[in-house]
C-alpha cells in the first residue's frame, strides 16, 4: 500500500465540506469509505448566548502537531488519505470551524481515525477559543471530558 496522502490547513476563510471530500479522493477516486466530521460554532455554552468567537493558534506548531496526529493515525489504521482544515480568527455562531476527512478501504478504519484525529484536535493542538457574549469576553475552559476521550486511545 502506498503512503496515505495527508494534508493540514489552518485558515481564516470558510471551507466547503463537499469540495473537501472531493479533494480527499482526488487522484484515487472513491474506494470503500470516507468518514468526515464538521464542527460548528455553538450558539450557546453553559447557558450563555455566544455573539461571536475568536480563535487564536500557535502558527507553525499548529500545523506540525496536526501533521503528527495524522501520521500517528496513519500508523494505526490503513488509510488512503486524511485531511484537516481548521479555521482561526473571528467566527460567529453556526459557522463551520473544523473539518476532518479520512478515506480508507475499510469503514471501521475511516471512522476510528476520524474520531481519533478530532479527539486530539480537542486536547492537543494549540488552539484557544475566546467567546464574546453579552456578558463580555471569556476564554473557553478546557473540558476534562475531552481529555478523558483522548486518553482512551
Amino acid at each position, binding site marked *: 500500500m502506498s503512503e496515505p496522502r495527508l494534508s493540514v490547513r489552518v485558515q481564516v476563510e470558510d471551507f466547503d465540506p463537499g469540495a473537501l471530500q472531493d479533494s480527499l479522493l482526488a487522484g484515487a477516486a472513491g474506494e470503500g469509505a470516507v468518514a468526515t466530521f464538521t464542527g460548528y460554532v455553538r450558539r450557546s455554552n453553559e447557558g450563555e448566548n455566544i455573539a461571536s468567537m475568536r480563535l487564536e493558534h*500557535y502558527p507553525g506548531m499548529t500545523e506540525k502537531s496536526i501533521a503528527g496526529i495524522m501520521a500517528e493515525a496513519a500508523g494505526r489504521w490503513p488509510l488512503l488519505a486524511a485531511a484537516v482544515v481548521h479555521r482561526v480568527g473571528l467566527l460567529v455562531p453556526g459557522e463551520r470551524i473544523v473539518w476532518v476527512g479520512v478515506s480508507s478501504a475499510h469503514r471501521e478504519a475511516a471512522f476510528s481515525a476520524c474520531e481519533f484525529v478530532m479527539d486530539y484536535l*480537542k486536547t492537543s493542538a*494549540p*488552539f484557544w477559543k*475566546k467567546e464574546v457574549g453579552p456578558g463580555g469576553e471569556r476564554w473557553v*475552559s478546557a473540558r476534562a471530558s475531552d481529555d478523558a476521550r483522548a486518553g482512551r486511545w
Partner: protein
Amino acid sequence: MIEVLFFAQVRERLDCASLTVALPESGLDLDALQAQLIAEHGADWGDVLGQDNIIRAVNQTVAQGNPALRDGDEVAFYPPVTGG
C-alpha cells in the same frame, strides 16, 4: 538567544506575546528559564507561569520533563487548548 512565546490567557495576563532571553555560558534548562522569567518580572509572572496546568513547548513540541535548551530554541508557554 532563545525566543520565548506566550499564548491566549498567558499572553493576556503577562501582557506580553514574546521576548528573547540570552543563553548564558553555563547553559539553561527549561525550569531555569521559567524561574529566571519569574525572577525578572515579579510575582504576577510567578502566578501565571507557575500554574499547575500550564503547558510548555520547546521547538513546537510539548516538553516532557526539563530539557536543556540550546541556542536558537523556541520556547512557548500556554494554557490548556480548546480547539476543534
